[in-house]
C-alpha cells in the first residue's frame, strides 16, 4: 500500500496540478463556456426549447394524438395574442392589417418584411418566432411517420429495419428539443478533449521520469522487485479514475445550471428532433451514455499514455509520441461523440454497422489494456543491464 501511495504521489505533482488548473480555466473560458452561455442559441431555438419545456410540463415525456389537439388550442391562444398585438400597433393599422391571418396574406414584400421585423422583435415579444415554433412542431408531429427522413432511399438494411421498428411501434412521440441534444453533444466533445489533454499532461511523465533518473534498476533490486510496474499501472489507472470523476463532476455541475434535467425522462427518438437513434433511450440515459463513452475513452487513453511513457527514454521523445497520439485521439473521440448512437454517426455510416462508435471505444479500451499487460509481461523478462 505504501508503494502505491508513493507512486500515486509521483503522479500528482503540485506544479503539474497548478498548470492543469490554469489550463482548465482558460480551456473552459474558450471552449466550454460557449455551450453554457449561449443556450438555447438564439432564435428560433429559444422559442422551440421553451415550447418543448412547456409541453413536457403539460403533457409529460411524450405527446399522444389527443394532446396534439390540445396543443392546437395553445396555438389558437397565441394567435389571439398576436391579433391583439397587431390591433394595438399603429404600423399594422397604417398598412390596413388587423389580424395574423390577414398579415400572412400580404403580398407586397417591402410591407411584409417591415411588419415581420415588428413581429419578430423583442417589442413584439418574439411572437413571430413563438408561432413558428408551434407550427413547425405540430407539422413535424403530423408527418412524423411519413416525412422525408423516414423514407430516404439510401438507408442500409439495418437502418430500414430500425425505421420500420420505429414506425410499427409508434416510437416517435417523444417531446425533445433539437438544441438540448446538439448542445450536450458539443459540450461533451470539448469536455472529452480537455479530459484527454489533462490525462496526458498528468500521467505522461511518470514512467519516463523513472527511466531518466535510472530508478528502474534500483526498483528491481528492491523487495518488491519487478512487480513495481504493476503498482505503477494501478496507480496510473486509479489516478485516471480520480481525475475523470472529478472533471466529469465539475462538467456536469456546470451543465446542470442549464436545467436541461427537465427532459431527463423524455425519449430522444422524437417527432421534433429529426435524427433517428439505434436504441430507445431517454435524454437522461443519453447523457449517461456520453459519460460512459468518455470514461471508456479516458481509461483507454490512460493505458496508451502509460505505454508511451514506458517506451520513452526522455521527455522530448515522450512529447514527440504524445502529440500525434493526442491529435489522433481527439479526431477519433470527435467522430465517436458526434451523433452518438445515431444513424448519422460517421463511423456507423462508414461500416454500415449500428453502434460502431461504441464498438471502437471498447476496442480502444481493450487495445490499451492489452498493451499494458504486454508491457507488464515484458518487464518481467527484461535483462537488468
Amino acid at each position, binding site marked *: 500500500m505504501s508503494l502505491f501511495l508513493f507512486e500515486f504521489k509521483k503522479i500528482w505533482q503540485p*506544479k*503539474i496540478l497548478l*498548470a492543469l488548473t*490554469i*489550463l482548465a480555466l*482558460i*480551456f473552459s*473560458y*474558450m471552449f466550454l463556456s460557449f455551450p453554457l452561455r449561449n443556450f438555447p442559441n438564439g432564435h428560433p431555438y429559444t422559442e422551440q426549447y421553451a415550447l418543448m419545456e412547456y409541453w413536457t410540463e403539460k403533457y409529460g415525456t411524450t405527446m399522444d394524438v389527443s394532446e396534439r389537439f390540445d396543443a392546437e388550442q395553445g396555438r389558437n391562444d397565441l394567435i389571439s395574442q398576436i391579433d391583439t398585438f397587431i390591433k394595438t400597433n399603429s404600423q399594422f393599422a397604417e398598412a390596413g392589417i388587423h389580424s395574423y391571418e390577414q398579415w400572412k396574406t400580404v403580398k407586397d414584400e417591402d410591407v411584409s418584411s417591415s411588419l415581420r421585423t415588428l413581429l419578430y422583435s423583442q417589442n413584439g415579444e418574439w411572437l413571430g418566432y413563438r408561432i413558428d415554433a408551434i407550427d413547425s412542431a405540430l407539422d413535424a408531429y403530423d408527418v412524423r411517420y411519413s416525412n422525408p427522413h423516414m423514407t430516404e432511399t439510401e438507408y442500409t438494411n439495418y437502418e430500414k429495419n430500425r425505421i420500420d421498428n420505429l414506425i410499427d411501434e409508434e416510437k416517435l412521440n417523444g417531446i425533445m428539443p433539437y438544441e438540448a441534444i446538439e448542445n450536450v453533444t458539443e459540450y461533451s466533445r470539448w469536455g472529452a478533449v480537455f479530459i484527454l489533454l489533462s490525462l496526458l*499532461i498528468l500521467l*505522461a*511523465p511518470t514512467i*519516463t521520469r523513472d527511466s*531518466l533518473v535510472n530508478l528502474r534498476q534500483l526498483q528491481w533490486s528492491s523487495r518488491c522487485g519487478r512487480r513495481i510496474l504493476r503498482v505503477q499501472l494501478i496507480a496510473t489507472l486509479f489516478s485516471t479514475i480520480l481525475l475523470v470523476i472529478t472533471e466529469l463532476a465539475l462538467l456536469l455541475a456546470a451543465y446542470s445550471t442549464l436545467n436541461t434535467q427537465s427532459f431527463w425522462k423524455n425519449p430522444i427518438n422524437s417527432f421534433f428532433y429529426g435524427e433517428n437513434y439505434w436504441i430507445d433511450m431517454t435524454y437522461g440515459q443519453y447523457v449517461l451514455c456520453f459519460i460512459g463513452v468518455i470514461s471508456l475513452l479516458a481509461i483507454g487513453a490512460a493505458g496508451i499514455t502509460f505505454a508511451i511513457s514506458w517506451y520513452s527514454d*526522455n*521527455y*522530448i*521523445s*515522450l*512529447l*514527440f*509520441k504524445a*502529440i*500525434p497520439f493526442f491529435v489522433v485521439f481527439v479526431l477519433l473521440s470527435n467522430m465517436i461523440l458526434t451523433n452518438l448512437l445515431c444513424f448519422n454517426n460517421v463511423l456507423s455510416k462508414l461500416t454500415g454497422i449500428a453502434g460502431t462508435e461504441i464498438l471502437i471505444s471498447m476496442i480502444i479500451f481493450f487495445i490499451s489494456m492489452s498493451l499494458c499487460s504486454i508491457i507488464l509481461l515484458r518487464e518481467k523478462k527484461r535483462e537488468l543491464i
Partner: protein
Amino acid sequence: MRLVTFELKKLLSLPMLWVFMLLCLILNGTIIISNVYDTGDIDFSKYMSKTLTTTGTQMGEEFDKILTSMPESEWRNLLISQTSDAESTFISTDATALGNKIISLYGFSGFWEEQITNKYEKLQVPVGQLVESNASLSVYFAGMTRDFHQLLFSSLFSAMTTEVCLLAVLAMLYILGFESKNYSEDVLYATRSGRSIPKNKIFAALIIALLMFIILFGASLLLFFSIFDCSGIWNSNVSSQFNYIQELGFTKPFWTWISFTVAEYLMARLMLAAMLVIVFSLFAAFIGLQCKNSYMGFVVFLTIAFGMMALPQFCASMRFWGGYFLSEFLPIPLWYCSSQWLTDLGGISLIPWHETIALIGNTIFFFLLILFALRKFNRKDII
C-alpha cells in the same frame, strides 16, 4: 562553431524528431489528397496551366477569343462559362465601406473606430492601384480559385506552420534540457566554454528549426505542386475576383497591401512563416533557460500559448479594445490568423502590414529577452 556542431549532432540523432516529421508529412499528404480526391480539380488545374500559357492570365476580350478558338473539351467549356465577358470589378471597391462594416460588426467606437477608419482609408490606395491594374481580371484558377487558395494558403500552410513550430519548440526545449537530463550540467559549466554553451545550444536549435522548415515545407509543397499543375498561374494576381475572404458571415475581396502575383504571395508567406518559426523557437528558448526540466518547460509553453489564444477573446468580451489590439500582436494570435496574412486582417488589426510588423517586433522582443535571460544565466550560481 565546433560547439554548435556538437549540439547539432545531439539534435539530429534524436530518432523521434525524424519519426515526428514523417508523421507530419503523412498528415500533410492526407490533407492534400482528401481535398482533391474525386473532385476533378487536378485535371482542371492541368488544363488551365496548359491553356493559360496561350491565353495569358488576364481575362478580357482577347482571352475570350483565344479560348473560344481552342479545341472543344469539357474543361474548355467550363473555363468559358466561368470567364467569358468578365468585367474588371471586385465584390466592392470601397475600402472605407468595408471599414464601416467591420466597425459595426465588432462594435468599435471612439478612438478605436477612428483608427480602423484610418486603416481602411490607407487600404483605399492599394485598392485603387489594384483596380487600375485590372487585378480583378486576373484569372488565377477561375472557379477553382477559392478552393485552391484555401487548400494551399489556409489548410496546408496552417498545418505546416503548426508542425514546424512544434518541432522548433520541442527541439529547443530538448537541447536546453539535455545537460540537466544527463547530469553533465555542473561539469560543463566548469569548462572553459562554460556559460556560453546555452548560446550555442540556442543557435543550434534555431538552425534545426530552419532545417525542419525547409524539409517539411519543401517536401509538402513538392507533393502539392506535383499534384496541382500551377505552371500557368504563377503570374496571376492573388487579388483575382475569384478569390475572396469570409469574415463574420460576410464576404470581402482578397485585397493585399501591395499587388502580389501568386508566386510573390507564396514567397512572402514562406518568409513570414519562417519568421514565425524563429519567434516560436526563441519563445521556447526563453522558457528552456528558466526550466531545467524540458517536460515542465513544454507544459509552461502550452499554458502560456493557451493564455495567449484566450487573451484577445477575453479582452473583446470586456470591450477592452486596447488590450484586444495589443494581444493580437502575440505569437499565438498571429499564428491563428495566418490564413489572412498580408490582407487587411479585418477587425483584428489597427495598422497596415500588421503581421509583418508584429513578427519583426516579436523576433526583436524575444531576441532581447533571450539576451537578458542569458545575462541572468551567466550570473547564476551553479550550486
